[in-house]
């Protein structure tokens, strides 16, 4: 997995330590800690994982193993307005694949990539449970329902500023 090399400043390291401490530095709480860390940094680069491993007193390899196991965690920064197309069964049956293709075409990225300007990343997700609105697309936290390939341009236009 490719990752981005960054250097954490002291403030960020302290912040991470605080997060770990709020879970009593319990190794059991690794997943909860990672959720919090990703909330703060937007992603989980190797440097963040190293600090967490040290604080919870577990091997860095273990933290890495957990991060890469769960699809919710990412080591690549997401776009400013991340786009997720639901490819759960209900959305698939109602044409999610065509919608996804249209996003790929218009943004010129593949699933899991971010546009060069850092604006949009494209990912798939499995069922947000709003199957009545299938096919569903999420941009950030905003839910778009009954999206057709024709509607893709309109959604993207909302973020053109």
């Amino acid at each position, binding site marked *: 997995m490719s990752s981005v090399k960054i250097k954490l400043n002291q403030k960020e390291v302290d912040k991470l330590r605080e997060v770990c401490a709020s879970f009593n530095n319990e190794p*059991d709480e690794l*997943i909860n800690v990672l959720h919090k860390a990703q909330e703060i940094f937007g992603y989980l680069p190797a440097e963040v994982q190293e600090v967490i491993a040290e604080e919870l007193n577990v091997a860095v390899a273990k933290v890495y193993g957990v991060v890469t196991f769960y699809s919710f965690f990412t080591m690549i920064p997401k776009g400013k307005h991340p786009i997720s197309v639901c490819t*759960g*069964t*209900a959305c698939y*049956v109602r044409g999610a694949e065509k919608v996804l293709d249209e996003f790929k075409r218009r943004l010129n990225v593949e699933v899991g990539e971010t546009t060069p300007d850092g604006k949009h990343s494209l990912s798939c997700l499995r*069922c947000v*449970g709003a199957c*009545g609105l*299938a096919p569903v697309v999420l941009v950030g936290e905003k839910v778009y329902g009954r999206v057709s390939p024709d509607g893709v341009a309109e959604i993207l236009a909302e973020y053109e500023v």
Partner: protein
Amino acid sequence: MAKYKTHLLVCGGTGCKASASDVIKDKLTRELDEKGLADECQVVMTGCFGFCEKGPIVKVLPDNTFYTQVTPDDAKEIIEEHIIKGRKVDRLLYKDPTSKEEISDSKHMGFYKKQMRIALRNCGFIDPENIEEAIARDAYAALGKVLGEMTPVEATQIVLDSGLRGRGGGGFPTGLKWKLTAQEKADQKYVVCNADEGDPGAFMDRSILEGDPHTVIEAMAINGYCTGATKGLVYIRAEYPLAITRLKIALEQAREYGLLGKDILGKGFDFEIEIRYGAGAFVCGEETALIHSMEGERGEPTFKPPFPSVEGYRKKPTNVNNVETYANIPVIFLKGAEWFSAIGTEKSKGTKVFALAGKINNVGLIEVPMGTTLREVIYEIGGGIKDSKKFKAVQTGGPSGGCLTEKHLDTPIDYDSLIACGSMMGSGGMIVMDEDDCMVSMAKFYLEFTVEESCGKCAPCRIGNKRLHEQLELITQGKGSKENLEKIRDLCGVIKDTSLCGLGQTSPNPVLSTMDNFWDEYIAHVEEHKCASGACKDLMKYIIDAEPCVGCTACARVCPVGAIAGERKGPHTIDQSICIKCGACVDKCKFNAISIK
């Protein structure tokens, strides 16, 4: 809720919220304030009504008026017409699709007529963020009864007698599971609520937690009392932020009211609940994987035995139950095991919640007695197939289940009959497919899911499913032969027999059941390289017929990749090497000159 004459219930489920139902709620409240009606009429944001297809929904009590597809702009009219003048807003009422008549009372809607709501009894009736409303509808009464009048053994016996079986997929008798955990001797035991709901297309657990979180808390406490556990954990998907928020609020309120914590209801029983988050891994719904995930590990399953009831979370006896299973518990104690076991079929008692989705008119969440037929569910409750297309199949049991066809429509739904038909109950996802869906592609779709979600621990599942997927890929690309079909059957057998956990053991089911029921379709793919439904893009071509083509250039202008060439007023042609088969040209041609071959 007594002091108000009228209640306006606004659906606050994830689906309706995505369509601005909170703005509707605010507007209704503001209108009432302006008209000075705030003391007579209350607006409540509830959990899901189930009728997601026609959301956002606003329901008026006591007369049960059911307004569909409401927009914020309708708020004023609802208040002025319905609340003040007593005249229903006809244009917002649900119209029966066959009789075209407006139905004002939801009890008479085809969607609700055949339903029986036990697990969903409070969803859509209460404000899930207000414990008082839950209590007004008997929340925690069962807990009071159990703690006050029964020993753990007596209470467990009632669950056993009810015949309740686990709703998370396996269908294991719930009472027996409780008994097994209770028998273990340990200084600490745990009860766990499985709210991972990984089956894509199923959303009943989410709706229960969003609409009636207290029922789960109450049932877990009863479960704790019966098994001797003082600690409960809810493992919930991180993809369900609204359910998480409402559960947190409910836990806080339950603690405030002394319904959680030390010495509950003064009966000397201590019980606490904590939340643990999933992080997007389907296999974590499997109970041993779930336990490892809660311990901060990779969510890989381990061999059973030992079962969690013997050695689970932190190596202590642990009872794992599904959200919907829990939602049935309080009612069983209030109405009795006999009442519950009178509902359903011989071996499957009570009701089951299904998430109806796909090519069906009424997408939504439904609850029916076990033994209801697929036909009743799809045609009477679901309102039939979308756009008057022909029914082809219904998929139950998600990635572990199978596709059922026309000939299974009159099968009564229960755990055992679905298995006999080559599918399974699973968690209750029900995806309806019509003539436009290709069954080979469907099987491939599920396999893609399995390949992505396999934890990789054991070879048959990790490698076998990948190979299986490749075989299907060849077939949908028109490169398959009958030999591939034989290979597929063999591989399916090996994967089923040798995988470590339920994920691998059931992953070939979608393939096997579509082969059993739609063999002709597989044959057409490998022998004639044809996909009748037109779903397999590689097996089709867009062709312009020179005869009717007048050279209007409409198609060439719309083609996104410039695959169409031709002189104005002369016949056009499509360059197959460029065409991406989007179909845009077909829709644009007024002369029906473009066809799919």
